[in-house]
């Protein structure tokens, strides 16, 4: 049967189980939008294409399914770029579909032409320009396969307008043809054996768990492994939720703003089991002194991560969930000893803390109250900055996919559109975007989207009148010269109301709880402007380039 290219696209998306697309129309994608009118796929119109990409990313992180965004050619496509790069850095399955000028106008600097496949080459797992309408169905199938298997990542499909209007035969997509693509599954037996015996021998083990645990759904295996070995677990920012924060073996986050006890444990361990991590510089800081006395076992699905940043003694390529199962078969239960006692002493001696005030609001306190009010059952997204680190430190995450934040790229403006995507993917859950006054203004136009689709996302702005993390660095490393980090904000309450959302301004610490309760109870999007202590810093902190056991604060 004959279909238009645009119809083939939608049928192929439906075949992949896509129920929602985040996007923004424009000239050359009109054939797709026209076909969408008669499709069951739900479309969320964001107010900016960057918002569409982040919303699709948030949807993907919350649900585990690929997120889909759609934009027109030229500026529509380039506005997706930050969102695609963000998904690439954090290994998020995303399929970005862009329109392109008609094939005959390609390469002539035509109106709204941008070489988006060229532009996104370094920030996609793979990308396609569809040159033959008969390939469209197969390309969509391949794109979803690539985005969601192996190390997940964004894939872009660029579709010239004449391809989406061409009439073709379509009876479903053909078999996959990716001869060079073989994502690993199980780890090599001999290496798994080596790892198991090293784990049994070790006296001071630490597990360092990252986003790979969440992505592969290995949180149960991780918990079991930690308990069998009585090994403390520290997670990266991306690994938050992969191990329950309230577990006695939890060390919280490590690295630049990690807990003292996590950083001490990593610095003194004799064995580091790195699971689904990439030894990012925000974690390792000075690489030569990172876990310098430890045997390092590294498990990752991406072979290129093994040995990229640190020397690894036992490199295991494989799906984290499968490799942990392989390890569990080979381990016997160990009892806690002097190492665990030492760690518990550190935990008692150096807990995360802050000074509560009854005059000004402490941002940490707001985050603790969000935890109390939601019973720890909310999905939390964040923007990027001080509030992001406090959100990582002061809310206890016990479930995977409950903390959704821009790790690798550090994208200000990510959290709010991501929260919209999360709320679309999890309509019955409470969603909070923890934001700063600077970050929220990078994609604040998405209030329109939240109101438009009755998405009751809650935005908690930690308003300190500064780009807080920039100010903190200027205080510590630039002699308090606060160059361009002070910022005025609009009246967030009026702004929320202008969009049709609810707004609250909170200046008194005693009002925090009641406002949060009102927000959770409300069926509308709510923006809460918490006027917080202006010069509060995120501690502990490892200065860039220092060993992680040398912390400020």
């Amino acid at each position, binding site marked *: 049967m004959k279909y238009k290219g645009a119809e083939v696209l939608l049928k192929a998306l439906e075949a992949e189980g896509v129920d929602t697309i985040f996007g923004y129309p424009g000239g050359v994608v009109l054939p797709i939008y026209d076909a969408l009118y008669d499709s069951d796929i739900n479309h969320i119109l964001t107010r900016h294409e960057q918002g569409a990409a982040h919303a699709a990313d948030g949807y993907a992180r919350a649900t585990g399914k690929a997120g889909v965004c759609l934009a027109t050619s030229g500026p529509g496509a380039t506005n997706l770029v930050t969102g695609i790069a963000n998904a690439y850095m954090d290994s998020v399955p995303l399929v970005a579909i862009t329109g392109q000028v008609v094939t005959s106008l390609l390469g002539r600097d035509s109106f709204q032409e941008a070489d988006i*496949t*060229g532009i996104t*080459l*370094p920030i996609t*797992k*793979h990308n396609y*320009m569809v*040159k033959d309408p008969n390939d469209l169905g197969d390309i969509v199938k391949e794109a979803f396969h*690539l985005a969601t298997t192996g190390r997940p990542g964004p894939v872009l499909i660029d579709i010239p307008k004449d391809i989406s209007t061409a009439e073709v035969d379509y009876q479903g997509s053909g*078999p*996959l*043809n*990716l*001869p*060079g*693509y073989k994502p690993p599954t199980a780890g090599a037996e001999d290496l798994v054996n080596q790892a198991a015996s090293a784990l049994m021998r070790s006296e001071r083990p630490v597990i360092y768990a990252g986003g790979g645990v969440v992505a592969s759904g290995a949180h149960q295996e991780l918990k079991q492994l930690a308990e069998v070995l009585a090994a403390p677990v520290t997670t990266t920012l991306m690994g938050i939720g992969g191990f329950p924060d309230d577990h006695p073996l939890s060390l919280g986050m490590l690295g630049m703003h990690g807990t003292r006890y996590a950083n001490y444990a990593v610095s003194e361990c004799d064995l580091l089991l790195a699971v689904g991590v990439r030894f990012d510089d925000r974690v390792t800081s000075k690489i030569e002194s990172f876990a310098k006395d430890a045997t390092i076992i590294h498990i990752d699905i*991406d*072979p*290129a991560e*093994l*040995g*990229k940043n640190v020397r690894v003694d036992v490199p295991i390529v494989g799906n984290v969930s499968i490799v942990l199962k392989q390890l569990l078969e080979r381990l016997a239960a160990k009892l806690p000893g002097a190492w665990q006692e030492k760690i518990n002493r550190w935990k008692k001696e150096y807990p995360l803390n802050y000074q509560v005030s009854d005059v000004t609001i402490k941002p940490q306190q707001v985050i603790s109250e969000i935890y109390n009010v939601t019973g720890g059952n909310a999905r939390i997204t964040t923007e990027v900055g001080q509030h992001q680190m406090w959100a990582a430190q002061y809310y206890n995450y016990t479930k995977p996919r409950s903390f959704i934040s821009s790790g690798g790229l550090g994208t200000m403006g990510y959290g709010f559109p991501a929260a919209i995507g999360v709320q679309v993917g999890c309509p019955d859950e409470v969603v909070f975007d923890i934001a700063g006054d600077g970050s929220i203004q990078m994609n604040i136009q998405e209030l329109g989207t939240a109101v438009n689709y009755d998405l009751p996302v809650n935005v908690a702005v930690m308003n300190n009148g500064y780009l807080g993390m920039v100010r903190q660095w200027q205080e510590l490393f630039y002699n308090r010269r606060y160059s361009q980090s002070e910022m005025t904000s609009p009246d967030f309450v009026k702004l929320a109301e202008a969009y049709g959302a609810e707004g609250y301004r909170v200046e008194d610490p005693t009002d925090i709880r009641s406002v949060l309760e009102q927000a959770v109870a409300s069926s509308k999007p709510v923006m809460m402007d918490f006027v917080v202590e202006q010069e509060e810093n995120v501690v502990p902190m490892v200065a860039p380039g220092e060993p992680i056991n040398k912390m400020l604060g």
Partner: protein
Amino acid sequence: MLHTLAVLVENNPGVLARVAGLFSRRGFNIDSLAVGRTDNPAISRMTIVVEGDDHTLEQVTKQLHKLVDVIKINDVTNEPHVDRELVLIKVPVDRASRLEVMQIADVFRAKVVDYGPKTLTLEATGTGEKIDALEEALRPFGIKELVRTGKISILRGAKYTTANITKEEE
């Protein structure tokens, strides 16, 4: 140290840009890159000469493997292999020097592929060293133009790096 990689890739548009872009953005040094299709028109073969220590080479190989279009990579540096480069060199000649250039060509088993009133163009194949030597020998005559293909390479004996492509069934 220089390494020679034999890389089989799918003959898709943009594959060269993907490979070259990967080298530049990861900070790897390409010494030469030669590419052409194989006996299977769907597959191209790149011979990439890259400079770096063992760690760099490991990363180059692993990062290349991440490209979906890359089917197979072989580091043939330490395996018995034959490698060749092709060069075309245009040299200005006059009555006195013409014979001398032809004698040099003879020594290097280079062919005269164009014979003009004022120039000779030579074609030679061989290892990079041989081609360098020919270039040096002709330099005193004043080389007008020189073009090299970059190295291509193949394993000796029964070993081969061809991938058998079968359509993957679902």
